[in-house]
């Protein structure tokens, strides 16, 4: 039937009820359950792409790439720990659990990180022998579920990370579906195999910053003040969270923006809760500066880091180091077009596969299926990760040298401009070609 406006007019689609929204309404109506996935926020958000580095000029001269040093070493945790983490590069591997990832994937992460002199991180579910053996510097997470947490592994860890939240779901707990819970995963978590395992959203024995300070004290006492202690939060109120974590005695604060998140959770949570990564860094830095703890308490930023340019921009905004999760999985081989036929069979395509919670990953990374997991060669995958980390580092150095910096941590906000008003306001750098920083630069609390 012709429309009342006449057949000459093309059909008009709603910008509000777009193709994805309509499909989601149909899916929800058909199934009655909300959608769950991994891979962080996929909506377009202000990101590092919206920032540019200025490079050198008459007033700022660059460094020669082939002979002038640009240091990348970072020390994490010297505030209180007698054995701080010494990173050769300011790019670390974020926490991802054995259970969510295969043992081969965890081993590969350890191999790749160790080859480049950086750290990797456990996850919800504890520490495996493989990742400890292959990680020269291993950060041990203390999560609300306390799955796999024990004093022996705590003492074996090179750093401890108290996880308050993560970028994919600030304020949310988690669930690992039963199909990923084989006997080994179940035993590490003290739960029956094959059942869905819920992870709490709050720690069982502390609430609030006063308690957190005592929890940190306990962990320091247990480890005889050797081990650095990080506090990780999802980016939501970075000014206050950073201030409270630092005041509670953390050696380092990890801020995870909403583009981050290998953890699966409800799509509505991933896309609608938290802050973009670039909006979280300056408030966190401001909090540390006000406490006189900037560069004493290290700031590690994660959430959507893909390239050396992203690393350089994060460091310029004030991070001491960054952490990568999704990019590391891709470097291992996740979403590889070589498996396109299998991705298609799962109803998706290489590059868009995000059902990491279902355990059917053709690349053998986000699975506990023995046949799928065996596809990933930890040695080769570790080498790919090391290559990738090397490229990130070289790119970061190239950009830092171009800005005249002899250490990548010398990059600063003055080296940046923004391409959009939104990015300028969030990153608190001028809109390109102007001296205009939108918003109220005097107001430190950018998370209001």
């Amino acid at each position: 039937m012709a429309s009342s406006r006449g057949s000459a007019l093309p059909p008009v689609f709603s910008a509000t009820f777009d193709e994805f929204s309509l499909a989601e309404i149909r899916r929800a109506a058909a199934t009655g359950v909300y959608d769950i996935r991994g891979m962080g926020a996929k909506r377009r958000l202000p990101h590092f792409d919206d920032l540019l580095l200025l490079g050198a000029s008459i007033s700022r001269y660059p460094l020669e790439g082939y002979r002038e040093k640009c240091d990348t070493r970072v020390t994490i945790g010297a505030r209180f720990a007698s054995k701080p983490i010494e990173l050769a590069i300011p790019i670390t591997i974020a926490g991802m659990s054995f259970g969510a990832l295969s043992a081969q994937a965890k081993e590969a992460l350890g191999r790749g990180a160790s080859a480049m002199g950086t750290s990797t991180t456990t996850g919800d579910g504890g520490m495996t022998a493989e990742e400890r053996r292959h990680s020269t510097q291993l950060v041990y997470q203390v999560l609300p579920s306390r799955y796999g947490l024990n004093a022996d592994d705590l003492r074996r860890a090179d750093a401890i990370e108290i996880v308050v939240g993560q970028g994919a779901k600030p304020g949310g707990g988690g669930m690992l579906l039963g199909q990923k819970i084989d006997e080994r995963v179940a035993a590490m978590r003290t739960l029956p195999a094959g059942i869905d395992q819920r992870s709490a959203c709050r720690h069982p024995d502390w609430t609030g910053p006063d308690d957190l300070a005592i929890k940190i004290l306990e962990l320091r006492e247990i480890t005889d003040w050797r081990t650095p202690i990080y506090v990780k939060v999802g980016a939501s109120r970075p000014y206050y969270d950073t201030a409270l974590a630092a005041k509670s005695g953390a050696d380092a604060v990890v801020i995870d923006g909403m583009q981050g998140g290998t953890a699966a959770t409800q799509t509505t949570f991933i896309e609608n809760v938290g802050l973009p990564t670039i909006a979280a860094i300056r408030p966190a830095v401001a909090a540390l500066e006000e406490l006189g703890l900037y560069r004493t308490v290290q700031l590690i930023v994660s959430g959507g880091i893909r390239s050396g340019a992203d690393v350089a921009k994060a460091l310029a905004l004030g991070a001491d180091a960054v952490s990568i999760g999704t990019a590391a999985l891709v470097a291992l081989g996740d979403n590889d077009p070589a498996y396109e036929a299998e991705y298609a069979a799962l109803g998706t395509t290489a590059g868009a596969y995000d059902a990491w919670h279902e355990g059917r990953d053709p690349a053998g990374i986000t699975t506990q299926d023995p046949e799928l997991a065996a596809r990933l060669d930890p040695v080769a995958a570790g080498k790919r990760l090391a290559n990738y980390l090397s490229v990130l580092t070289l790119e970061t150095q190239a950009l830092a040298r171009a800005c005249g910096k002899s250490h990548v941590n010398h990059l600063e906000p003055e080296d940046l401009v923004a391409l959009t008003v939104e990015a300028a306001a969030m990153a608190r750098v001028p809109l390109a070609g102007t001296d205009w920083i939108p918003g109220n630069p005097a107001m430190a609390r950018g998370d209001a």
Partner: protein
Amino acid sequence: MRTADAAIADLEVMPLRELNAAFHAPDVAAIAPVWRVKNPHGAHALACGVDAPIAIDIDGHVGYYCAGMNQQATVHIHGNAGTGVAENMASGTVIVDGDASQSAGASGLGGLLHVRGSAAARCGISMKGIDVVVRGDVGHLAAFMGQAGTLIVCGDAGEGLGDSLYEARLFVRGRVASLGADCIEKPLREGDRATLAALLERCGEHGVDPADFRRYGSARRLYHFHVDHAGAY
């Protein structure tokens, strides 16, 4: 437990860090198998992370996380305990003569926690194998998300007992204010009575009849996500 040749540590003189470091010394059991801690004055993180078959008597009240992550040691608190006493304990025994604050035995992997007074909210939260015996009452959300181990409450239990429970076994002699999501009463079997009798005997809770207890466990309806139970998650 107190002996004439116990090593004496006075927290009015000795810094906490120094005392805990002494407990962590590899040869602590050979040097001093029995310790007596004087003047704890509610200190936090006291005797945490001990991994040795030693006995520690604490003369007074302690703050948060006393005997946290304990392994092998027997820690006897002659007073009340703050939040998270014996949290994540893996083995050994912790005795609280008085009351315990919230989250007693939280995420405990093993060993025995005996509270001779009452325990506040979230006693045994996320328990993973620990045995907890409370002579008095427990507050709300006891054994929340309890995965394994045994909680015995000789008195009453507050609201939401065993909420989101996995495989931990709960026994309550008194009144239960309410059960949490997915927690149900189950028959008290002969094996349960034997478990009760053994733990009560080990704690010296004589005169308590195992037959007076009621058993609670998981209905296991939350073991596999289903939209009909979404409201319970």
